[in-house]
């Protein structure tokens, strides 16, 4: 007799362990592929995983096998025009008739790349491996608290909207039963006595009258027990639990003056993307504010931020004061973790740099968790860099780096967020 078993209810991820092992095993190859894959991505287009490919040669499992050459005879089906003794030129692969043993292709999966899909988590895990938000941010993070009301059983005190009706009625019922119990038992006793008496005597017997009066009295007592009492009321209890703030806003500030060409913007974009992704891993919710500036600053959407072109001079402080205003209006420090990244080619109107420093020192640095400034220029630093140097000396959460070309982005990013060993 056969046994039928419905296995569909069992878990489906029997191979998950093996898949993890596969990923771990080829971590270095995968990491390389992941880094390459970063190039073509939009800043918010991160909710999908990534298809990565690693050379099949690296992951093949070698076995002994016959290579091409030597003497072999192979049977094929579907002969049409051949007769014994025909000679045909050896095809250069492709056509079946000349192919080597059929088993050859099974062993190594050819020279193709091995392509597969990493889930979003796996992808980012590889990408951000050994990076973390700097220590100082962590401590501040722990302090930043929000409260959330959570249920915590029932209590006997509370406000009317929180009355737990079912529980209140239950305790009222219990109380009524308990309070009525002695009366009820006496009532039953008397009724039995009265019935016994009535069989022998008539209604006018004094004992009967007495009993009847007593029964009426008891009934009144029982009815007088209140249906519900303040004593019965139960309230759903809610307590406030401290919640770490899990929302962040990221400000992207970029110089779009004439000197920022497409290549530099592209570099900036990659840096912003990295930062966005990285923050995304630490916060449930992230707002991104794009501010671009030349002589005046403007808040724009992502598309415009990266792709529209402007010309003109550069006044960096315009962007900083716009950021300050936006923070003041929309992102109160108490409930938002604020991060900022600024990208520029270092060019600024000479007299503006000191005021940038002042805005940062007076208004912005107190509010942000981290402020990263990257200067995309192969040249010497100008006045802005020097002004920022002063900020850096005072505020540890201010970081600045110079980027020469695409190759620098990842190292600089890693450098900024490198996991510091406990000191």
């Amino acid at each position, binding site marked *: *007799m*056969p*046994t*039928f*078993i*419905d*296995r*569909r209810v*069992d878990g*489906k991820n*029997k*191979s998950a*362990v*093996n*898949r*993890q*092992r*596969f990923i*771990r*095993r080829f971590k270095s190859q995968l990491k390389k592929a992941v880094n390459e894959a970063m190039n073509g991505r939009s800043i918010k287009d991160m909710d999908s995983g990534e298809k990565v490919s690693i050379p099949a040669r690296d*992951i*093949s*499992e*070698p*076995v*002994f*096998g*016959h*290579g*091409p*050459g*030597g*003497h*072999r*005879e*192979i*049977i*094929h*089906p*579907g*002969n*049409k025009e*051949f*007769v*014994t003794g*025909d*000679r*045909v*030129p*050896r095809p250069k692969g492709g*056509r*079946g008739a000349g192919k080597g043993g*059929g*088993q050859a292709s099974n*062993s*190594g999966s050819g020279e193709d790349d*091995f*392509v*597969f*899909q990493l889930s979003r988590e796996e992808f980012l895990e590889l990408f951000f491996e050994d990076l973390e938000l700097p220590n100082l941010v962590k401590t501040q993070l722990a302090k930043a608290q929000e409260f959330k009301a959570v249920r915590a059983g029932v209590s006997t005190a509370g406000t009317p909207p929180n009355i737990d009706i079912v529980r209140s009625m239950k305790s009222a019922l219990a109380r009524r039963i308990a309070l009525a119990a002695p009366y009820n038992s006496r009532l039953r006793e008397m009724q039995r006595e009265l019935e016994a008496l009535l069989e022998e005597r008539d209604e006018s017997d004094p004992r009967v009258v007495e009993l009847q009066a007593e029964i009426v009295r008891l009934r009144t007592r029982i009815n007088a027990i209140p249906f519900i009492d303040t004593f019965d009321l139960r309230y759903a209890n809610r307590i406030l639990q401290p919640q770490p703030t899990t929302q962040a806003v990221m400000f992207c500030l970029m110089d779009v003056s004439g000197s920022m060409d497409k290549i530099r913007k592209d570099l900036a974009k990659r840096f912003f993307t990295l930062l966005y992704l990285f923050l995304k891993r630490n916060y449930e919710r992230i707002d991104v504010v794009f501010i671009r500036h030349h002589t005046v600053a403007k808040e724009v959407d992502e598309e415009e931020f990266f792709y529209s072109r402007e010309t003109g001079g550069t006044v960096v402080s315009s962007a900083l004061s716009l950021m300050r205003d936006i923070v003041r209006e929309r992102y109160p420090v108490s409930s938002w973790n604020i991060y900022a990244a600024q990208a520029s080619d270092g060019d600024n109107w000479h007299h503006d740099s000191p005021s940038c420093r002042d805005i940062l020192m007076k208004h912005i640095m107190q509010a942000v968790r981290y402020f990263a400034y990257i200067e995309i220029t192969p040249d010497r630093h100008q006045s802005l860099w020097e002004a920022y140097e002063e900020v850096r000396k005072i505020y540890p959460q201010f970081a600045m780096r110079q980027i020469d070309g695409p190759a620098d982005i990842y190292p600089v990013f890693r450098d900024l967020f490198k996991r510091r060993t406990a000191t």
Partner: protein
Amino acid sequence: MTHRIISSSSEWTFPLLERYETEIDRIAADFGLDTYANQIEVITAEQMMDAYSSVGMPLGYKHWSYGKQFVTTEQTYKRGQMGLAYEIVINSDPCIAYLMEENTMTMQALVIAHACYGHNSFFKGNYLFRTWTSADAIIDYLLFARNYITECEERYGEETVELFLDSCHALMNYGVDRYKRPSPLSMQEERQRQEERETYLQSQVNELWRTIPSKEVLEDAQSARRFPAEPQENLLYFIEKNAPLLEPWQREIVRIVRKLAQYFYPQRQTQVMNEGWATFWHYTLLNELYDQGYVNDGFMIEFLQSHTSVIYQPSFDSPYYSGINPYALGFTMMSDIRRICEQPTDEDRYWFPDIAGSDWVKTLDFAMRNFKDESFIGQFLSPKVIRDFKLFAVLDDDINPDLEISAIHDERGYRHVRQALSDQYNLGSREPNIQVYAVDHRGDRSLTLRHTRYNRKPLTDSASEVLKHLHRLWGFTVRLEAVDENGKVTLIGECPSR
């Protein structure tokens, strides 16, 4: 007769599965199919992919290569490049068959007939499976293997164990005994004996590698003697017993991989027969079901549509051609044997005097029990099948600039084609013949393998990679030599290279 029809909808349910199973079982019994008990498990497509990647083992130890397999399967399946197999069946007692929930009722019936009666009876009847595998113990053994390897991972680290398994896997095809029947597997015995084996094995190895000279006089006479006295074909066995530096747990892992290789060895030798047999029986059983009025025309049309695509054989110049389809060849040959028994022609009487006109059920049963692909083709490939497939032989010799058509489907060619096709399924000629030739046990402890070339076929480049793995297992220098037709020996690989 219509009242007999079991179902007419394509939806399946468990009660319906059972009714189909009962009817198929009855018909199979009429044909004398002898099977293990069936255990039919319904699974989802995802679970099918899981089952795929563990090469059909219901429970395997953990290893990245299975993860790779899974990723590949998942990838091709999601892109729609590949449909999943309708079924997977495991050579165990009870015989476990997986049905996919996405299948229609017809497909489920087809799979039940194919796997639970076709493959199942083949596993039970074929001499290779009877000799080399113990269906009743395999699940236990797999469990033992998995637990043991997990334990090793905990004790010695996942990575260490993983690398070691890699090396064993590289030599898996060389971990089978071809002539000696292995002792049956059993979980309990395994556990009990595993420890004894550990200590005993180590003592043997110590003896072999003892460096303290004991009988100096005898020594000289013996030093010329080669070790091993005869070449050894089971590389993993040789390593398990003789590798000087392995820890006891490593020897046990070598043994586990070897046992699994042995378990899969018959499957690799009976592809055509096994699939042919199962296909022949699902075809025969379901047709019988139809003749007896249990299924309707719609059922049959869906079944035949699927059946014909399974046994489709593209010709050599088709873009879909990838060698001979074992289902097609196997099914055609099985059906042909039935035809030779029932309606023999003069040609059949000349070629198959002993089976022409005999009882087909008995003849087919005999063929299933006593052959493997190589001998089955050598024995039963009839001129008619050769003609139907239009088989022809192509001789590819690297000393000639052109390919030569050495035989086609004509009177002069039948024997040649049959011989060549049979050889194509001979594992002995498909896999390079590599054996342990010598160990320098008085000198540098190096191990020498010899590849005896067959038809001058060279090894692939991956041989040097395999040597690295072998070196990891052996611990000392490993050499690979090739012997050509004239007995000339050349060194073709060494690890670590000089």
